[in-house]
């Protein structure tokens, strides 16, 4: 019998619907794959095998009765940031020790409503703060990809490193992820998977552990552009419980995948040509433009003049919002509690022990930039710069551009415990240089695997779209995927 874990999400879903095999068989195959791999890859922080089998059996019963939703019987991995009722939800942090929510996030509820099966919770950077999955309380995730002939462990990127690694290593048919500054697109690029951050407001944030509320968006990581469209279709939708949720109908994303790029204008921002960028990334970018041109798109040089200020503005806005959102972890309501001589002592000791170093650093930066006397100089200025960043994009779109093509990351996956990156926090932050502008402007962005570097490691290209025009990203992303025509399956060593 074929290995059910090796099917695309679409083929798996269609096979279950046709009763070629059952959801229980697919679920068992995935649980087996996870059990065999997780010691080495550390992608899952909790495996819910019993619950998965119960959900799979229920799916099979619905299918037997001729019922079934758009994801009926499809086993998925869920980032540990999503509240899942009665199941491990800790944002990969020590401070949420033992937390099992009494409620379900809207995005996961949408998936279960469409018949999907939960395999477990996926590792991530603590509170989604990181670009390498090394800040997790549960330890780093190991990238299923290795450089040619090497056995050095590489990072899968972050913060959705567990999601990307699990999808890449065939440990789930698809995964949920979230993106505040690049946390879907950078790990997708590092693992040869497809990741889309939809427009701000497309997916409900209700029940997702908050990091930076004006930037956070949920999205899928999947093995193909089409799979990512199918998943986003289920995840998205208006939710009255999220005051920033967009009251818009969700288009048929899968129908847009094969639409092509004929007649589209693709913008190429000159500010994304960074000094010291590896030549292979520059070459890939150029190649991507040629592919789109060959399919009938027009390429146009554009300028996004405030690009270089997006990352510094982000490192004011995101920590400021985080310091406020993370104030709720106090040792009283849930999770870890370290006793103290009085209430302040309890707060300070609990938070000192419960938060990891990167989280503490960001909460402190946020506290500082919001403190009396510094608010205008830092926070208000950063929000003004953010207005300018958004205007750059608005001008480009008003000038006739339909989507923008850029590299997804400034490099391929790097090694775990890279000394250079750990000596200076800003160096790690530079990983998000091409992705963070998109969050600052609330736009949709997709990362699609497009090539490999000299080591044989995957490299991705990013497409940025107009607000609520994810369809064009799926169509153009599919052209990149098809034109690249490469196999992005890592060689199995685990």
């Amino acid at each position, binding site marked *: 019998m074929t290995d059910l874990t090796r099917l695309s999400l679409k083929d798996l879903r269609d096979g279950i619907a046709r009763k070629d095999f059952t959801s229980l068989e697919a679920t068992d195959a995935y649980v087996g794959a996870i059990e065999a791999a997780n010691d080495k890859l550390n992608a899952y922080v909790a495996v819910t095998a019993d619950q998965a089998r119960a959900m799979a059996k229920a799916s099979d019963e619905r299918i037997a009765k001729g019922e079934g939703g758009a994801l009926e019987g499809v086993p998925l991995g869920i980032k540990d940031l999503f509240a899942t009722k009665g199941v491990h939800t800790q944002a990969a942090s020590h401070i949420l020790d*033992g937390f099992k*929510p*009494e409620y379900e996030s809207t995005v996961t509820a949408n998936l279960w409503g469409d018949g999907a099966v939960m395999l477990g919770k996926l590792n991530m950077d603590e509170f989604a703060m990181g670009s390498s999955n090394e800040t997790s309380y549960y330890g780093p995730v190991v990238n299923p990809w290795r450089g040619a002939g090497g056995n050095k462990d590489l990072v899968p990127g972050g913060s959705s490193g567990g999601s990307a690694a699990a999808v890449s290593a065939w440990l789930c048919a698809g995964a949920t992820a979230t993106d505040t500054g690049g946390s879907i697109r950078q790990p997708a690029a590092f693992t040869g998977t497809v990741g889309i951050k939809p*427009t701000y*407001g497309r997916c409900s944030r209700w029940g997702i552990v908050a990091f930076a509320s*004006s930037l956070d968006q949920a999205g899928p990581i999947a093995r193909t552009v089409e799979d990512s469209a199918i998943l986003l279709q289920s995840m998205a939708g208006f939710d*009255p419980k999220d*005051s*920033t949720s*967009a*009251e818009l109908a969700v288009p048929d994303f899968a129908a847009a995948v094969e639409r092509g790029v004929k007649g589209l204008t693709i913008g190429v921002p000159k500010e994304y040509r960074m000094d010291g960028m590896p030549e292979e990334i520059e070459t890939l970018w150029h190649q991507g433009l040629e592919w789109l041109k060959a399919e009938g798109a027009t390429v146009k040089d554009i300028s996004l003049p*405030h690009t270089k*200020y997006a*990352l*510094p*503005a982000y*490192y*004011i806005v995101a920590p400021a919002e985080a*310091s406020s959102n993370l104030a709720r972890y*106090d040792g*009283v*309501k*849930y*999770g870890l*509690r370290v*006793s*103290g001589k*009085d*209430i*302040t*002592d*309890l*707060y*300070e*000791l609990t*938070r*000192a022990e419960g*938060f990891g170093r990167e989280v*503490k*650093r960001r*909460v*402190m*930066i*946020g*506290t*500082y930039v919001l*403190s009396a006397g510094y608010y205008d*100089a*830092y926070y208000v*200025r*950063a*929000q*003004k*710069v*953010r*207005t*300018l960043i958004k205007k750059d994009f608005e001008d480009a779109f008003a000038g006739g551009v339909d989507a923008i093509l850029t590299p997804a990351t400034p490099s391929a996956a790097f090694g775990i415990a890279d000394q250079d990156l750990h000596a*200076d926090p*800003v160096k790690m932050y530079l990983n998000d240089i091409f992705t963070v502008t998109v969050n600052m*402007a609330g736009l949709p962005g997709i990362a699609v695997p497009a090539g490999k570097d000299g080591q044989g490691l995957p490299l991705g290209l990013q497409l940025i779209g107009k607000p609520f025009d994810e369809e064009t990203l799926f169509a153009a992303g599919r052209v990149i995927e098809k034109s690249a025509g490469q196999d992005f399956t890592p060689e199995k060593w685990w």
Partner: protein
Amino acid sequence: MSVDADTVRRIGHLARIRISDDEVAAYEGELNAILGFVEQLSEVDVSGVEPMTSVTPMVLRRRADGVTDGGYPEKVVANAPLSEDNFFMVPKVVE
């Protein structure tokens, strides 16, 4: 702008995170590296620019002022490290 050791301790207290004496120097260095990085925003001309308050052009939705949820205190305190009679328990706050 940069922070010194006393400021690190003050921020730690404002953030309710205990910073031990042997951690202060490291935080001082890291926070100053980040503040040095964001310093480049000062070269942007922001005169006449409105600070962003909403990334998508939307008016915050309102709803009728009515109770739509609740009535299950036992669920609210279910994850509390310490609770009694559906109350969160904390050290004595008022003498």
